[in-house]
């Protein structure tokens, strides 16, 4: 079996090595449903505990762990990955692409997600896992939960953010660069619109989470004092976490909104009412989602002006949602609605989401928030939004696209039973939470008067859980015994239904185009390009396994880390040296990036996420300086000479990088290699100077834990230094290849892409130098 063909679906090799978007989608689907079972079982266990205030099914620490992992797993390892399962399978089909722009990166993002989840699971067996609530509040996490399992769980989250970054870059480039000719952005199917806005939000939200995790890990492991000092502490964490956390609500919701849009059109046999307004409203929500985080912090005593601003934005963000929901409802007016299982789930999900949305407006009010914050009212609100709106909406998507994925129809009867059980179970479980609004969340002890409500909720929880058993049975049974689905069982109009079920590896037997305003297929696809495209690679799995081992060793045995790092280096070289054929569509709609090739777009997308990562780390520095009444004057703690010298070194290295690029364009092999060598030397010199500076500070007794000025300096310059080091590794590889004549004549784009990264690292230093040394 060569790497151009996919092994049969029963082959383990296929599922370990595949890079095909449909296979990766199936992997995401199965894994997210596995985590759904895990998170669900944890929920049922602590629901049993909550049936009576004094029950001892779980010890208090076990209760805390179960609640925390349930929240983290459901938000980060179930709902978003389930959306990505559908996005992986469906988006390339909906836009007429053969695959995602970077198939190996797609497989890599899946394996990083899986291994990130495994790290979180392993942390259960290291005495104690994360037990601080899914919001990881401070200083609870940094000081009062000193267990090694908490570190492992945090590393699992870090691996997940790496997966998300890789995935985000891939989907952004794919949707912008691989659309069928004539398929404008505003004409995209609603699911793809939802996914595009989701990945754009992820691009700017997840780096904030990564920044927070880095600062937190630094506090826990290195002893920095970001969250243990009163000047940083709980409020700094709240800002960072909710800057990620609130957009995350829309990140999990938008794919479901896209599912609603596509399913409503199919089963109401009408175009979506005010479709452009829906898209515009979603863009407004995506933008505003980054300006509402403060409503999670009304009780922190922050400045009244800021509280008022966050109230306004929080109320404002509900308005576009009104437009979206009204448009959905109006689409159904006077329509001949076909109440098939996917449509039932959409209607149920919208009804639930309306309740979740309205109760969210309550929490945007400062006065009400003082009463309701941290109670079961909040738990009810976000479960109606994220479980009812997002998860149930995505389940509609699973049913909708199941025939396309498997070529088989599921049992409509079992689907309806699942729907009825879901509606009964969900509302029986979560509605009593609204009525338990005086009960604090995350506490297993409560007043006797709430026992009936909690017992009703527990019964509802088991009904809701049982409903998923019906779904699993239905999907598994139908896989073998379901009626053949045909290519378009629902009579839908989007592109994914215009090919076989399941589709062939290259998706379509012709190149889809919308040039004449309607769909047609031109020429042959895939095979027409000569050498077939590659669908298998071992390196995504190997890279992820290596990352997993490297991180696992940090909390188990350093030898495991050493093995992991070795394997990582081997895998990176393997990936770089592999001949992997993945061609971009010849005929594609690429506005607004017609003049930007896909690698360039990918690099800039990645750098945008880096902007947020460093932006948040530098903002944390400005924040703690503002909060501190005293700070060492410039030149007292840090030697300005070291900073100035390093500034000149990095600026010079930026010049040598562009000169290497210019030399490669002019065809000079010697100059190309020479300027790369100079850059390498300057980078090493920078790190050497940094090493000297750190050594001097250590010799004067100034360490990571010597107060905020030292902590912020070591952490910020340490993260920057790590970026320089990564750049030097890449430079070493480029230099070795340049010596052999690479990049001269053709391939000089590689140097330009590397330059984007190196110059960005330079720009970060351009701000670090004045902020830490001069101001």
């Amino acid at each position: 079996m060569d790497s151009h063909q996919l092994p049969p679906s029963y082959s383990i090799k296929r599922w370990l090595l595949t890079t095909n978007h449909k296979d990766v989608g199936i992997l995401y689907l199965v894994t997210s449903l596995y985590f759904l079972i895990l998170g669900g079982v944890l929920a049922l266990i602590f629901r049993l505990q909550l049936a009576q205030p004094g029950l001892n099914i779980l010890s208090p620490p076990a209760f805390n762990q179960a609640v925390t992992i349930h929240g983290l797993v459901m938000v980060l390892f179930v709902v978003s990955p389930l959306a990505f399962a559908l996005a992986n399978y469906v988006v390339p089909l909906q836009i007429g692409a053969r695959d995602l722009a970077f198939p190996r990166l797609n497989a890599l993002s899946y394996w990083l997600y899986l291994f990130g989840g495994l790290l979180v699971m392993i942390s259960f067996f290291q005495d104690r896992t994360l037990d601080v609530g899914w919001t990881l509040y401070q200083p609870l996490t940094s000081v009062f939960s000193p267990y090694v399992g908490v570190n492992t769980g945090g590393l699992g989250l870090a691996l997940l953010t790496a997966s998300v970054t890789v995935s985000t870059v891939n989907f952004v480039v794919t949707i912008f660069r691989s659309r069928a000719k004539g398929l404008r952005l505003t004409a995209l199917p609603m699911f793809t619109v939802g996914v595009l806005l989701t990945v754009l939000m992820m691009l700017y939200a997840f780096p904030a989470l990564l920044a927070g995790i880095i600062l937190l890990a630094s506090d826990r492991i290195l002893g920095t004092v970001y969250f243990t000092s009163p000047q940083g502490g709980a409020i700094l964490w709240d800002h960072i976490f909710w800057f990620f956390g609130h957009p995350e609500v829309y990140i999990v919701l938008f794919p479901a909104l896209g599912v609603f849009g596509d399913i409503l059109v199919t089963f109401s046999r009408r175009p979506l009412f005010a479709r452009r307004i829906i898209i515009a409203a979603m863009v407004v929500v995506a933008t505003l989602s980054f300006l509402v985080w403060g409503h999670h912090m009304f009780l922190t005593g922050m400045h009244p002006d800021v509280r008022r601003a966050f109230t306004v934005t929080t109320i404002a963000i509900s308005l576009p949602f009104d437009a979206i929901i009204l448009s959905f409802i109006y689409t159904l007016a006077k329509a001949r609605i076909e109440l098939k299982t996917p449509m039932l789930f959409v209607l149920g999900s919208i009804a639930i989401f309306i309740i979740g949305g309205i109760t969210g407006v309550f929490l945007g009010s400062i006065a009400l928030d003082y009463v309701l914050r941290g109670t079961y009212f909040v738990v009810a609100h976000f479960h109606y939004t994220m479980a009812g709106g997002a998860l149930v909406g995505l389940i509609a998507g699973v049913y909708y696209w199941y025939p396309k994925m498997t070529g088989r129809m599921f049992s409509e009867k079992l689907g309806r039973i699942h729907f009825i059980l879901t509606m009964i179970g969900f509302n029986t479980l979560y509605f009593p939470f609204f009525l338990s609004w005086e009960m604090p969340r995350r506490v297993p002890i409560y007043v006797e008067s709430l026992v009936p409500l909690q017992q009703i909720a527990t019964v509802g929880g088991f009904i809701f859980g049982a409903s998923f058993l019906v779904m699993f049975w239905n999907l598994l049974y139908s896989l073998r015994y379901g009626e053949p689905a045909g290519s378009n069982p629902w009579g839908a109009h989007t592109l994914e239904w215009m090919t076989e079920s399941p589709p062939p590896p290259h998706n379509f037997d012709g190149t889809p185009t919308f040039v004449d305003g309607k769909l047609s297929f031109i020429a042959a696809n895939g095979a027409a390009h000569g050498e077939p495209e590659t669908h298998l690679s071992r390196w995504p799995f190997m890279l992820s396994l290596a990352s997993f081992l490297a991180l696992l060793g940090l909390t188990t045995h350093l030898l495991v880390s050493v093995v992991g790092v070795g394997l990582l280096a081997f895998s990176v070289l393997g990936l770089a040296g592999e001949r992997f054929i993945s061609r971009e569509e010849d005929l594609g709609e690429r506005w607004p990036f017609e003049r930007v090739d896909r690698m360039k777009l990918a690099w800039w997308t990645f750098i945008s996420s880096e902007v947020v990562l460093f932006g948040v780390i530098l903002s944390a520095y400005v924040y703690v300086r503002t909060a501190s009444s005293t700070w060492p004057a410039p030149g007292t703690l840090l030697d300005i000479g070291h900073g100035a010298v390093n500034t000149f070194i990095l600026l010079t290295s930026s010049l040598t990088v562009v000169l290497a690029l210019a030399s490669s364009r002019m065809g000079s092999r010697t100059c190309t290699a020479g300027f790369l060598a100079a850059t390498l030397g300057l980078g090493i010199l920078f790190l050497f100077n940094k090493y000297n500076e750190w050594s001097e500070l250590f010799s004067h007794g100034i360490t990571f834990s010597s107060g905020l000025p030292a902590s912020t300096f070591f952490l910020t310059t340490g993260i920057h230094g790590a970026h320089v080091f990564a750049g030097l590794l890449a430079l070493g590889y480029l230099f070795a290849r340049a010596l052999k004549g690479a990049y001269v004549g053709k391939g000089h784009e590689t140097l330009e892409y590397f330059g984007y990264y190196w110059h960005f690292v330079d720009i970060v230093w351009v701000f670090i130098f004045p902020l830490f040394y001069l101001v």
Partner: protein
Amino acid sequence: MRVWVYFAVFAALVLMTVLELVVFGMPLPRLIIDMSIVGLAGGKALLIALFFQHLAYEPKSLSSFALLGIGGVVAFLILSVYSIIGIAFG
């Protein structure tokens, strides 16, 4: 791009860094010194992005990616820092 442009930008970057150090030592109010230095840093970052990263010659859509990220960070910085102004942390 012509090579002399790279050298001109590099010269400007070096000059601006020297200016930062000169301003740092000038007998001016602290606020003016700080704002000048951070402003110079912003100017240097802009030069690098425009000419070394070639954003001056790329479609604006590409710059918008980075600008969106910067916009988010600026909103985060302003709102988070403003939220604690006037609050004593001991």
